[in-house]
């Protein structure tokens, strides 16, 4: 998976969690929380979804890496680089 694939996956997960938000306008380097209405339960949903789809475990101490979209991409790409995108 490329960085762009990972980015799209995160965006699709966010779209499920926050269907009323305009996901396409998210800025990669600004905190997600400052752009869309996300609470700690929503971050838990991201973690659960990543485990469900790719069997990757994000330990609680690493949650801070998920604060921005760019952070998500750089944290997750190494974990996902050998995976094929599910068709």
């Amino acid at each position, binding site marked *: 998976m490329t960085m762009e694939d990972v980015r799209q996956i995160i965006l699709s997960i966010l779209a499920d969690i926050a269907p009323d938000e305009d996901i396409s306008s998210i800025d990669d380097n600004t905190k997600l929380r400052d752009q869309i209405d996300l609470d700690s339960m929503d971050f838990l949903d991201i*973690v659960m979804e990543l485990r469900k*789809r790719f*069997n990757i475990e994000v330990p609680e101490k690493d949650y801070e890496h998920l604060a921005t979209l760019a952070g998500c991409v750089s944290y997750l790409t190494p974990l996902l680089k050998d995976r094929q995108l*599910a068709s």
Partner: protein
Amino acid sequence: MSKPSRDWLKGVLSAYDTIVIGSGLAGMTSANLLAKMGHKVLLAEHHYNMGGLATWFKRKGGHIMDISLHGFPCGMIKTLRKYWNQDISKRVIQLKNIRFDNPQFSINTTFDKIDFTHILRERFGILKEVIDEFFVTARAMNFYDDLVMTTRDLFEKFFPGRTDVWRFLMEPITYANGSTLDDPALTYGIVFSNFMDKGVFTYQGGTDHLIKEMKKELLRNGVDIRTHCMVEKIYVEDKTVQGVRINGQDIVCKSVLSNSNLLTTIEQLTGEEHFDPEFIKEVKKVRLNNSSCQVYMGIKRGETVPHVGDLLFSSVADEYCTDKILSKDVTSRTFSFYYPEIRPGTNRYSIVSSTNARYQDWANLSEPQYKKDKHDLEQSTLDALEKYVPDIRRKVDHVEASTPKTFKRYTLHPSGTSFGTKFEGLKISRDLPKQINGLFHAGSVGIIMSGWLGAANYGVIVANETDKFLRQLSPSLVTASA
């Protein structure tokens, strides 16, 4: 008569990934999520209805009474949408007329930050800066804060000596989760802020509708639901969950998620001998929360009730006082008015009065005394309601009371606790899986994890832990759903 117990387990599998004990909002929500994640889930409930305290009953004359549908924060919309479905979440509506009536003040409010700010300024004469600072402080509180500061300290700091303000800020929360001025301020801050976000909400269709929809969703996701099924024992060997006994039958499972009371789960279902003595020492320190009394009043078919408010916090006590609120000599009541909008199409009204109560005040009465005290409670409640709904006695054709004993009987909660445990219970609940592999607890606990929203969200948090545990056992379990 109920059928022989083995019928209720007919066709049950010999093993499950998770057995969820109890179908309260936490139990149901975690069962639903775990099933959606691909696990094989059995949900066992001893009662014939699901829902736990989120329940209702029907009486002759077409009456439907809700037990705990008085109001929840707007966060419930999101929780219902994410962990249940869109249709369920769309039924959440706002209750806009919250009333206080007591010797210190009479106020109507939408119970949100904007209106509270306005009232605190205009009515109580508090400076805008102080109010803003108070809201910011309450909102910023979280689970990791220190526990030294109590709600009393918090109020003392912002509104010294203003017992009228304290009452305005505290009385509804005491009803919502049994907390007092002496509980950690963070429990107040979290719950108060949740409500202040947008106000108080309810579920259109009533509890019966909600639970029916949840049951459908559970079945769609493949949860094996079993009512009339009492879990009697959790089997543990080598600090690891092996299975459970339900109605006398053993069933194997990799994990147990107990929605039964925390202390019952540890002391009775599992057995203290399976835990570290140091842990049990902490368990012994856990205090249960208080219980409740309610009086349910069904309005005759064709009769109406004027719109006197959705929720009414009424009290004849001079000041806010936890002891008085818990006392059997009732001075404070919360009235919930159910207008036809709650169950569109039925054109019916009902009123439920709730008071916080102590189990020990009701547990040891003789049968005639118990009956008499219940009757007195019904009558004094009607008397108190007369002030708001004149002629109430002519309008009602069903009156019935419940006590802490009633809550205990239906939910099995020790002392009929309405809101789980005090704050210290949360750590014990979180630490269970560190003591026994595969043993999880979710349900009203620690004040902040109680109420409909708290219990449901805690169900999600613990389902996440359970899923993590199950996937570590079988790493191949990847559902590539996109």
